[in-house]
């Protein structure tokens, strides 16, 4: 009863008309933005953050969560109709989704994706409902050393698991930590790297960084990118999948739900890795793997289910440990802090209405997603036909004016533009902005935890290793850090051995 009462009360919070409206709004906006290639959920949430300032924290997070999982589905539409992934987690959907569209089964692909997203999301919410209190209860024993180790591991995992150059991702994370040091030292009050600028005395606000790197950075990049290629979307017919398709996809949906749920919890995991893993699993399990890439419905069902399940379960580390698992969660983390809510193990007990309100809103949001996704396909196709030339300045203006409304400060707007330029340059030079934002968000937690730990441990760093939880986390940290090097050495040795044996064979011949 102790467990179920707050859960049931959470439904009361969601069913409040305002919260329902914001949930609907979030899902709809997420789907619309997911449809537009170029702007992913991180950029959308960053751009729309100012909309959340004048509403209750629970309402704000319900809307942002809706944008997140709505965008997961929205990204599918361009993958299927244009062969352009709306975002990274929809890349593998292109393989079979577009072929199905060419076979006149675009509606089938989109319908299966919607059903899979609903089932995957719902299973993940059930998992979240039961697992989150367990994780939070476990984390209540965490002290500063454990948080130090956890934050370090989280940053490392996000940096090493993300695509592209690992070392560049680590550099981006280190820059994020560096930016977080700007402003007053919380322990001594001394100003650091402010150069006498009053606007920097309280540090750089998280919102201009997120809006700049993800919002303006993407907009500038898209200005350049869209001059490369453009294509018209495919026609959509037969929106409802047949019974045969549903039966064929059911196994993939089940497996995708479980896989996505577990991969979503891992720091650095999340929607993209889940969809890739699900595609690989389905192809491996198939009796005839050659069907994949030629319109296999499982190739759409599995990844689309997995990415929604992962999007939902990635709320677990955020809400229970206060550790965002990916860049989008880092932005939601920032949004919570702005609202005066600190995510962590205390959240379930101290703010049960907010916690269960947000969790339960996902049940409702997933139903809304399912209800709206299929009938609105026609609308999404029309949106795809709106010229990017018109959408780009609209997005830029929303970002600029939204940035001003944060604190009525032109300094913030200038920061957004400067971080936009940085975001653009990072993309051009191969640096991921995700690790930077995540490390920036975790920077103050990491510094304060580390300094508190050293005070408790009287400056003896070996104390981190003698505590079981922090010690284990640090061992995992070392393994994760060293693993890529071991892998490289092993693969080089393997190549050398193969070459050697080939040479020997040639010599014998």
């Amino acid at each position, binding site marked *: 009863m102790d467990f179920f009462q707050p859960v049931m009360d959470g439904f009361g919070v969601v069913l409040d008309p305002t919260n329902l409206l914001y949930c609907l709004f979030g899902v709809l906006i997420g789907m619309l933005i997911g449809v537009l290639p170029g702007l992913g959920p991180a950029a959308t949430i960053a751009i729309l953050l100012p909309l959340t300032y004048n509403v209750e924290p629970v309402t704000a997070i319900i809307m942002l969560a809706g944008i997140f999982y709505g965008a997961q589905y929205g990204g599918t539409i361009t993958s299927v109709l244009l062969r352009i992934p709306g975002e990274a987690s929809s890349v593998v959907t292109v393989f079979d989704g577009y072929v199905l569209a060419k076979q006149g089964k675009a509606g089938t692909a989109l319908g299966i994706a919607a059903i899979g997203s609903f089932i995957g999301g719902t299973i993940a919410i059930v998992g979240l409902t039961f697992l989150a209190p367990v994780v939070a209860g476990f984390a209540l024993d965490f002290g500063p050393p454990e948080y130090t180790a956890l934050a370090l591991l989280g940053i490392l995992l996000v940096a090493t698991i993300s695509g592209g150059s690992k070392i560049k991702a680590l550099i981006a994370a280190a820059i994020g930590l560096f930016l977080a040091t700007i402003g007053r030292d919380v322990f001594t009050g001394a100003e650091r790297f402010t150069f006498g600028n009053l606007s920097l005395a309280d540090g750089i606000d998280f919102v201009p960084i997120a809006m700049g790197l993800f919002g303006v950075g993407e907009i*500038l990049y898209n200005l*350049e990118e869209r001059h490369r290629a453009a294509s018209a979307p495919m026609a959509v017919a037969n929106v409802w999948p047949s019974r045969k398709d549903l039966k064929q996809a059911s196994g993939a949906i089940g497996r995708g739900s479980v896989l996505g749920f577990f991969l979503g919890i891992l720091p650095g995991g999340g929607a993209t890795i889940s969809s890739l893993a699900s595609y690989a699993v389905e192809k491996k399990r198939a009796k005839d793997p050659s069907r994949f890439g030629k319109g296999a419905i499982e190739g759409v069902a599995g990844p689309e289910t997995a990415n929604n399940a992962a999007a939902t379960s990635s709320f677990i580390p955020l809400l229970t440990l206060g550790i965002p698992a990916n860049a989008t969660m880092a932005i939601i983390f920032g949004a919570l802090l702005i609202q005066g809510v600190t995510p962590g193990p205390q959240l379930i007990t101290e703010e049960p209405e907010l916690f269960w309100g947000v969790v339960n809103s996902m049940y409702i949001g997933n139903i809304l997603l399912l209800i709206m996704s299929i009938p609105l396909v026609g609308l999404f196709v029309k949106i795809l036909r709106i010229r990017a*030339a018109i959408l780009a300045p609209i997005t*830029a*203006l929303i970002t*600029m004016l939204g940035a001003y409304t944060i604190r009525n400060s032109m300094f913030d*707007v200038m920061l957004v*533009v400067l971080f936009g330029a940085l975001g*653009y340059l990072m993309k051009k030079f191969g640096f991921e902005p995700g690790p930077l934002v995540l490390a920036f968000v975790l920077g103050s937690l990491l510094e304060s935890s580390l300094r508190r730990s050293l005070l408790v441990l009287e*400056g003896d760093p070996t104390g981190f290793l003698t505590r079981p939880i922090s010690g284990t986390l640090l061992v995992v940290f070392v393994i994760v850090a060293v693993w890529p090097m071991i892998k490289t050495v092993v693969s080089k040795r393997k190549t050398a051995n193969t070459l050697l044996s080939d040479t020997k064979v040639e010599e014998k011949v």
Partner: protein
Amino acid sequence: MRAKQEPHPESILVDEEEILTPEQLAAQWAAEAPEAAGPVANLVSSLVVLGLGLAGVLLSLQLGLGTPAEPKPGMWPFIVSLIVAVLSGVQAVIGRTGGTDGEKFSNNSWYAAIGFATLVGMVLLMPVIGFEIPSILLCFIWMRWLGGERWRSAAVYSVVIVAAFYGIFIAALGTTIPRLF
């Protein structure tokens, strides 16, 4: 009522050449992708970050390091700056042969540069003459020259969009965005 699952007659005639395996599609994307940034870009970006790291190290030393048990304000920034400097130094060495990450600047990069310049212009003009005229100019430039819209449609859409933003931010939300009218 569920529509009967029959493919479109025209769509049965799928162009076989267009159906690519995931591997072929990935190869096609790779071929269509912009050229990798290359060794010079890698070196320049690494050196810029190295400079930032070294500057951070020097400034942190000025703030004082203290001891692990009693750290001064410079200790944590010193550690972080050192990590930045070491990693970028390693990247400068590793990345000297190029790699596949990053993208080369192209003629299209001017679009991004112009976009950035117009955003800066808007930030500088907004406090002086309000947001309306800079916003109309930004929309017009982005639509006409960066987006290839016709003169007339770019002008009409620019005015309509800014009027809509005026309605939302000033009239409906009552924000204090600097304005002319």
